[in-house]
């Protein structure tokens, strides 16, 4: 999948499309290759959904250089929108997805406008406060579920003209989760090459240059932030169907820590970074679990170690390692 992202310009669109299709087909049968058990399906579906969740926070962290602690809000908006609209009004998956995107854009537009002039610590704090407010509302407002949440979310229904896709089990939902993940990857890959992506990076890395080119940093910040929200939101949307239950726990730090760790673990601005990070973390929790307290200690320690010693993530570590292995004369000039 790296091929899509690194997007070697020489390879041409046709080759890239072929590679992409091949990878998508392999992805589709990946759970079967891993034994076809329900655990294989549910673990992979969960990894795909959580990875999409992480990509939302990834573009804010990687391209604005800001730590949003409020993305659980968009994650929950997706879950609550899918749950409420499908249970109370019987709407199909397309409608709930559209509503999720709309609500996330509105919420992120508001939050982004409010935080336009804030940076770093203050930005993190304000976004965190927004998530806390969201949690209190979800916890106390019975009309949208209250502290018990919403049960009885029916199977995901996606009508395609004549036929309707209907999925409730992990096996059914895997193709949807994979499709959402692939679409997100394409979207992020395009974003990286887009004018907005490069402008955002310039604003972060070289504000003076950006200013001299007439780029308005506030516009860029708002645009990237608003763009990031529906990505995390759509992950929450699918999560609601996967779990068939939505509650205020969607605001829990479990998800926030997962998002941040997944992104920094492999390294920022690496296309498949959040995906690999999520896969590593979920695999550790599900397959090599050492018990709740130890898992949290390990997760916290890994996060701290990576941030202290290899701020560039595992990719940075790998690069250092390769550099060290090169003989002195081969060593690139620094």
């Amino acid at each position, binding site marked *: 999948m790296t091929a899509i992202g690194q997007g070697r310009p020489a390879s041409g669109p046709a080759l890239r499309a072929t590679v992409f299709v091949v990878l998508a087909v392999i992805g589709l049968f990946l759970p079967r*290759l891993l*034994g076809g*058990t*329900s*655990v294989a399906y*549910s*673990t992979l579906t*969960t990894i795909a959904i959580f990875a999409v969740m992480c990509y939302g926070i990834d573009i804010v962290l990687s391209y604005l250089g800001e730590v949003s602690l409020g993305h659980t809000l968009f994650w929950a908006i997706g879950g609550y929108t899918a749950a409420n609209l499908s249970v109370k009004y019987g709407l199909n998956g397309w409608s709930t997805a559209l509503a999720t995107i709309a609500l996330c854009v509105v919420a992120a537009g508001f939050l982004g406008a409010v935080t336009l002039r804030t940076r770093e610590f203050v930005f993190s704090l304000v976004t965190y406060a927004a998530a806390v407010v969201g949690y209190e509302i979800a*916890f*106390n407002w*019975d009309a949208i579920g*209250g*502290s*018990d*949440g919403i*049960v*009885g979310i029916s199977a995901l229904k996606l009508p395609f003209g004549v036929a309707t896709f209907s999925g*409730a*089990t*992990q096996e059914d939902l895997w193709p949807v989760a994979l499709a959402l993940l692939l679409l997100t990857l394409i979207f992020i890959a395009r974003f990286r090459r887009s004018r907005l992506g490069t402008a955002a990076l310039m604003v972060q890395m070289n504000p003076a240059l950006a200013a001299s080119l007439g780029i308005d940093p506030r516009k860029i910040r708002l645009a990237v932030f608003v763009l990031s929200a529906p990505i995390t939101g759509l992950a929450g949307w699918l999560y609601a169907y996967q*779990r*068939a*239950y939505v*509650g*205020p*726990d969607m605001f*829990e730090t*479990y*998800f926030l820590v997962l998002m941040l760790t997944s992104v920094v673990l492999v390294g920022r601005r690496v296309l498949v970074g959040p995906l690999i990070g999520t896969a590593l973390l979920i695999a550790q*929790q*599900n397959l090599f679990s050492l*018990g*709740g*307290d130890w*898992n*949290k200690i390990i997760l916290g320690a890994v996060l701290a170690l990576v941030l202290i010693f290899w701020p560039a993530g595992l990719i940075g570590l790998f690069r250092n390692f390769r550099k060290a292995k090169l003989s002195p004369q081969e060593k690139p000039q620094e």
Partner: protein
Amino acid sequence: MMRTIQLAVVALLALGAPAMAQDIKVGTIFPLSGGAGPDGQTVTNAVKLMVDEINAKGGLLGRKLVVVSKDDESTPAVGVSRANEMIAEKADVVIEGWNSPVTLAMQPILARAGVLDITAVSKSDLILSGESNPYAIRINSSNGFDAEVIAKYVVNTLKAKKIAFLTQNDVYGNGFQSAVEAEFKKLNFSGQIVTTEKFAFKDTDFRVQLTNLKTANPDAIIVTNSSNSSGLPAMVEQYRQADIKSTFVGAVGIMLTTVFKVAGDANNGIISADIYFWDLPPFNGIAESNAFAAAFKKAYGADPDKSAALGAAAVQVWASAVQATKSLDRKTVADAIRGKTIKGTVFGDATFLPNGQLQPRYVVFKVVDGKNAKLEALPQN
């Protein structure tokens, strides 16, 4: 390549199979770490103890039982992963649930896979709604029953005419209050509700509310407060300091060891109710309960509390139904429990409503020596 992997997997399964085919798997999913960890461990320990006893008597359907216990970390997302693992390990029954959201998240996963799911502790009414799991079974009491016993005691036994509420302002507190008020109507309560004071779960200063309650001077104050390690002990202390004469009636299940430990003798005189005390009637007259209490003390060096009894009862109820039906099938076993009476559990004869709720028996009690957590059972009429 794929064939090789498949062959390897099949070979591995075949190697593992003969040893496991004989055993019946009892899964437990409770919080084993974090704040609720000790509670979840108590329930899990009780399940293990009961399973050991069944094995000592020759097992079930001629097969040995094994316990597979997992930690939901009080997090619904983690609970879902653990439920999926139980499905993969082909658990024959899963006994779960300390927190309602975790139970609600695991229910549809287990139900879709056709795994029998018994909820031991989680109290939400949604668990038995039948939407996620048409064969739901729950051992702990429901809010409806809890409200009934408190309302009856206040109206019929205390004969209170002026009643006040001191209510935690959330779904739990407000829900309990409206359920009690509904019971008042059923009982043709002729007195009046003089005032309702509310507070937030995290509050520790209740002096304003208590001053208002003192002015209103009701016969009884019905209190909901689920913060049993900080909020409730503080409330009890401040209640005494305010020198309020009204009877403090605590909602079902809030007077836990932590409250006695922190607030000590300030608890004296408080009236409340719960569904299990090994040393109080009717439970000290039930042979199974006495045997369980003795075995639990011997194995773990502590008295069994309500959580332990819930775990033990879950195993007993399930094992009786399996024995009676000679089946491990989810629907068959559930049908033998829902709407039926199972004899010989730590709760005595356990009668289940058609929706899967165990009909609880309550002990209404008065705290006589708070420092030593000594209670006295009160007659109910």
